[in-house]
């Protein structure tokens, strides 16, 4: 039942979108408790949205003529939640598992705008997410930050201007500690943390040489040298060159303190920065080193001991790292967890005594900074994108339920509308099921006649054009 409700919900938003399509006209959210994150709480405040941006925030704003008014009396508005570690909206596997360096693959190639988890995340107040490759390889695939613009095509999901990233992974997953290949396939290198380090070092050595080769070629070409042998383009090394040039963020999956320090050493050696450490469950042990490196830390609230390298985790991790000056966020790494990141953030008030505002920062401004999108998201400030969530209670309360989620000033989730639309969708579904059933019955009838004939149908005709080509066009690729 739960499932069917969600598949119904899936379509509710499309109509919501079109209803809110008048982007240019103004919208005002009125009479709300506004949690700005950067400049305190405004009681009975209003937010004016124009052209998808926050145009004004305050206690007494004038409502412009013709503006759409959202009455939020008794409700709470906060910036849209930013999930710094997500795997939603991906067509196919999130891991390209065979090569130890899979930087040639790109999550941006396989965004699936119809993944219902986008809508579920919206219902949990998330407006932007860092869509990561999995952790199977020391260097994984290219990653992308999206806005959860449910109902829009894949080309409209990417967060405009956000730098692309690349996934790294340290420890048990890339060294295949807890799983292995089937019989007949050799275990993959690396099998140790030392090997993981070597793979990363090797890849960057190659990337450096690759960059040099191209720089050299371009220089000689510009000088008019002829003949010249062009270098081969390498889709694996180009993203690593971008890392070296600071054009691509490194998001490194990690657990143990030693491997984190290792990556910081390697990064220093090759002259690149680690943008975020992901999971980073032992980050509290080396918070000073992480803070000094400038890397952010994106961790779980209280999830641990699910494997050996996660044994030393503590729920105080986020608070302790923040205390030492690390920019900390709390992420989901799970389509389920993403639906209540507000509660995940609240846990740091209990474990570590964070202030409510600092707790909310863990899922708003801090991940925005980590993803380099803080000029456009993460707080309720004039000029930022109107990516907002409206809760019926204080979002740090367990009673808080999302009422509306806005992106670029458009309502992408509206709880009341959603509930109202369910019966309609259920009706459509039943009608389609009925139609299919009738068609199937009509189909059956003429076939029954030859069955009566003495000749039983013993010759299943050979498949005509089946095979890979058509089936892969017909199904999931």
């Amino acid at each position, binding site marked *: 039942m739960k499932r*069917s409700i969600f*598949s119904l919900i899936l*379509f509710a938003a499309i109509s919501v979108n079109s209803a809110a399509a008048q982007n240019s006209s103004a919208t005002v959210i009125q009479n709300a408790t506004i949690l700005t994150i950067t400049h305190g709480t405004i009681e009975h405040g209003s937010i004016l949205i124009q052209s998808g941006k926050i145009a004004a925030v305050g206690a007494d704003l004038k409502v412009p003529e013709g503006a759409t008014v959202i009455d939020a009396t008794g409700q709470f508005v906060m910036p849209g939640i930013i999930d710094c570690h997500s795997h939603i909206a991906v*067509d*196919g*596997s999130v*891991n*390209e*598992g*065979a*090569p130890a360096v*899979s930087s*040639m*693959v*790109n999550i941006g*190639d*396989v965004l699936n*705008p*119809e993944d219902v988890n986008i809508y579920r995340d919206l219902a949990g107040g998330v407006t932007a997410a860092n869509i990561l*490759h999995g952790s*199977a390889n020391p260097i994984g695939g290219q990653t992308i930050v999206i806005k959860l613009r449910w109902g829009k*095509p*894949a080309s409209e999901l990417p967060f405009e201007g956000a730098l692309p990233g690349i996934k790294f992974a340290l420890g048990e997953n890339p060294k295949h500690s807890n799983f292995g*290949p*089937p019989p007949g*396939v050799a275990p*993959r290198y690396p099998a140790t943390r030392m090997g993981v380090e070597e793979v990363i070092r090797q890849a960057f050595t190659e990337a450096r040489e690759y960059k040099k080769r191209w720089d050299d070629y371009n220089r000689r070409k510009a000088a008019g040298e002829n*003949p010249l*042998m*062009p270098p*081969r*383009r390498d*889709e*694996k090394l180009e993203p690593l060159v971008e890392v070296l040039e600071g054009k691509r963020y490194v998001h490194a999956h990690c657990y143990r303190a030693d491997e984190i320090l290792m990556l910081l050493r390697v990064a220093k050696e090759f002259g690149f920065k680690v943008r975020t450490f992901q999971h980073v469950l032992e980050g509290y042990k080396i918070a000073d080193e992480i803070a000094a490196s400038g890397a952010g830390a994106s961790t779980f609230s209280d999830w641990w001991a699910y494997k050996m390298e996660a044994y030393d985790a503590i729920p105080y991790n986020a608070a302790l790292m923040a205390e030492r000056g690390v920019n900390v966020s709390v992420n989901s790494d799970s389509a389920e967890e993403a639906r209540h990141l507000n509660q995940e953030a609240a846990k740091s008030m209990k474990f570590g005594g964070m202030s409510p505002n600092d707790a909310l920062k863990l899922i708003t401004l801090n991940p925005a900074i980590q993803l380099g999108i803080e000029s456009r998201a993460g707080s309720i400030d004039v000029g930022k994108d109107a990516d907002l969530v409206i809760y019926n209670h204080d979002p740090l309360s367990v009673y808080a339920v999302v009422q509306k989620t806005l992106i670029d000033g458009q309502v992408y989730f509206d709880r009341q509308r959603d509930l109202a639309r369910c019966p309609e*969708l259920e009706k459509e*579904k039943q009608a*389609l*099921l009925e139609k*299919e059933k009738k068609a*199937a019955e009509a189909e059956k009838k003429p076939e029954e006649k*030859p069955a009566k*004939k003495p*000749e039983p149908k013993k*010759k299943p*005709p*050979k*498949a*005509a*054009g*089946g*095979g*890979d*080509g*058509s*089936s892969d*066009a*017909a*199904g*999931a*690729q």
Partner: protein
Amino acid sequence: MTVRWMRSRIWPAFMAACGCFVLGWACRIHAEGGEPRYFAITNARVVPVSGPPIDGGTVVIANGLIQAVGSDVAIPPEAWVIDGKGLTVYPGFIDAGTDLGLAKPDGADEAAARARGRQPAPPPAEISMGPEDRPATTPWRVAADEIKTDDKRIESWRNAGFTTTLTSPEAGFFPGQGSVIDLAGDRPGDMIVKPAATLPVSFKPRGSFFLFPGSLMGSIAYVRQVFDDASWYSQAQPVYDANPNQFERPAYDHTQETISHTRERDELVLLPANNSIQILRALRLADEWKIRAALYGGQEGYAVSEAIAAKKTSVLVNLKWPERAKESDPEEEQPLRELRFRDRASSTPGALAKAGVKFGFYSGGLKEPKEIFKAARKAIDAGLATDAALRAFTLDAADILGVSGRLGSIQPGKIANLVIADGDLWNEKTKVKHVFVDGRWFEVHEPPPGEKPEEKKPERAAGSSSTAGGGGL
């Protein structure tokens, strides 16, 4: 129907009746006996597709080509004349996506073949850890080189009015090049119209976490790298050839060499794309890779027809419409998205036509030709105009495949591929009576073996109300 000089043509009909491996033998006899090369179909309704239908028209065939068409056409004295009264002549139909003519042994055949020592056991899955291992990649294979004349489907497809197919190797990211073939010939070589017509691509991952590419994004990355490598080869090899003493030799790589040649020829790349997400993705990738591409699958085209039209991309539409799995659990949750897709897929051709997208049809795994027409009728019921449907089976398919100068319509100079039916193509009861392939005449009037022997001798009444049979559309 009155057909003069029927004697020597009893063979094909007989042969069709007893179903057959005598095919090759029978044809050879004709060849030796000097097969007739001139025909005239007179007094028929001619639907040239390239122009308006001609009532009481004549089509003259000479030496495999259409010599003349019109209502007032001189009939060469040497021509065999088919009285076309009550019959309609169409250009031969094109199935723009099949493996027809390519041996595809099923498990049993394979085991038997192996027992006879004819074929080695398939090799274990090759290990691939990156693009350089060229997993499941054989672009140098050309369907034309592997065509066998003994595929029984050649006859059943032809009897239904298909004179031409795009036949492609399958399995793998670059399985090989597709060929346009005509469905008649004593030898495979006679059948080939265009050997290297298309370069089909698949994004279907290898299905193992431990083999590259194991994910969709891996497949796409792989294809991207191969196109990169091909471009590089086109640049690098001439530099090396001109200066062999100055540069290190580029490694020989069959894949990049083949693909670079297909790109120099601007060969049509076929990208898989069935749902709207895949379609938009494929359009983007075609732009990024700077390839001339058509899409195959296309079944959710109704949702994105404008986007396809904007890119002026053609689509080969799979006529195997999506349906609920036959043995599916009746209690299984049916997502609304799937239900809608299954309900609307057949409206895609109509939507594409409306948006101005050029499209052809392919059987996509439908097992019998009559299912192909049934599926097309479903598209017509869902809003596709019948003339557009006919174009999709003929001239538009030919155009997409780059053979419209030779196939797809009834015009002088074109290959004499014709279907002669006893009524309108889209009438369920209409039956194919004659098929011409490369000017060779095949008469169709027996139900296929195994079907009920309820022969009401196909005597064609003008309105056509005959029984179901081999030529049923």
